[in-house]
């Protein structure tokens, strides 16, 4: 497997296993946004189009599985949030673990492409806000946990 595929999976395995609540998820998200906004990061290289389609398929399948395992742990531990604002009646639907993992991976992929175009992390953050909506995983949540605010 290509070095950057293997490197991303080697980092993501232990990082995602360590995510057990919304604040840790927010920290994971913050770190991965930093990686995807860093030119030539293995994360950026791994998401670029390449000819080695079969390796790319294996890489994305494995990353999606790791994300799905994390989502499952969060769901099992009851890490979901209430309606985002008092007047909204956010419909609390059961989180579909596999489909949520696909959306998170799509948000990383598509969000980083848009962010690299405008050279600004906001599109990637907007895509992740939408994908991680069932969980309390905002950037602020990460800062609060780390005691930086």
């Amino acid at each position, binding site marked *: 497997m290509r070095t950057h595929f293997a490197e991303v999976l080697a980092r993501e395995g232990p990082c995602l296993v360590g995510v057990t609540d919304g604040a840790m998820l927010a920290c994971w998200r913050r770190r991965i946004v930093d990686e995807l906004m860093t030119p030539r990061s293995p994360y950026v290289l791994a998401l670029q189009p390449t000819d080695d389609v079969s390796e790319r398929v294996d890489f994305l399948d494995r990353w999606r599985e790791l994300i799905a395992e994390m989502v499952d742990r969060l769901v099992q531990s009851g890490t979901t949030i209430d309606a985002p604002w008092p007047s909204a009646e956010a419909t609390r639907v059961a989180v579909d673990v596999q489909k949520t993992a696909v959306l998170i991976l*799509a948000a990383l992929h598509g969000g980083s492409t848009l962010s690299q175009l405008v050279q600004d992390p906001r599109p990637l953050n907007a895509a992740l806000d939408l994908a991680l909506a069932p969980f309390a995983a905002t950037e602020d949540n990460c800062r609060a946990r780390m005691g930086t605010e």
Partner: protein
Amino acid sequence: MTTTDSHNGRRLTARGAKTRAKIVAGAADLMFIQGVGGTTLDDVIAASGVSKSQLYHHFAGKDALVRAVIDHVGEFVIGRERDALGHVSTIAGLRRWRDALVQNNALRHGAYGCSLGALASEVSDNDDLARQTLSQLFGEWQGLLAGVLHRLQDSGALSPEAPIDQLATGLLGALQGGYMLAQTARDVTPMATSIDMALTHIESLSAH
């Protein structure tokens, strides 16, 4: 009769404009299938049936041709999206938009992804002018999605506090990422899932 080349400002005869359009259309098809990096100017000459001197008469090099392809593909994609989204004002309408995109991509087994997104993945590091043009085109697409969400908000289908611009950007990100996953898997399922999940979240922000 003459027209003006939008990039170099040079006036073109009708015949010149036709040759230029033929080169750009041929290059766009090749770059969609083979990628920008995998397409040489010799490939474009062979596919479009023009001579080398004709190609270099219109384009100083590959960067200039890629910029023309971005204009061409951008005009097509944004025009299509303007037609598809311009009057959508319900979640059901957004789901029909999603169905059309997925069905269209299913005809190709998801193989080639989004023609505009594919260009964005390949050229943004190499050419600042191309990057800015693509950025503007995706900004227009985001604006069309935001327009739909504003209409949903105006009709009371979406909470007045919903962050429209952010949701529109997030939806565009989910769409582009879905296209990219579909392209790798050669299967539209991840694209359909990704857009569905994003729309389900937007629907969950109902004001009622």
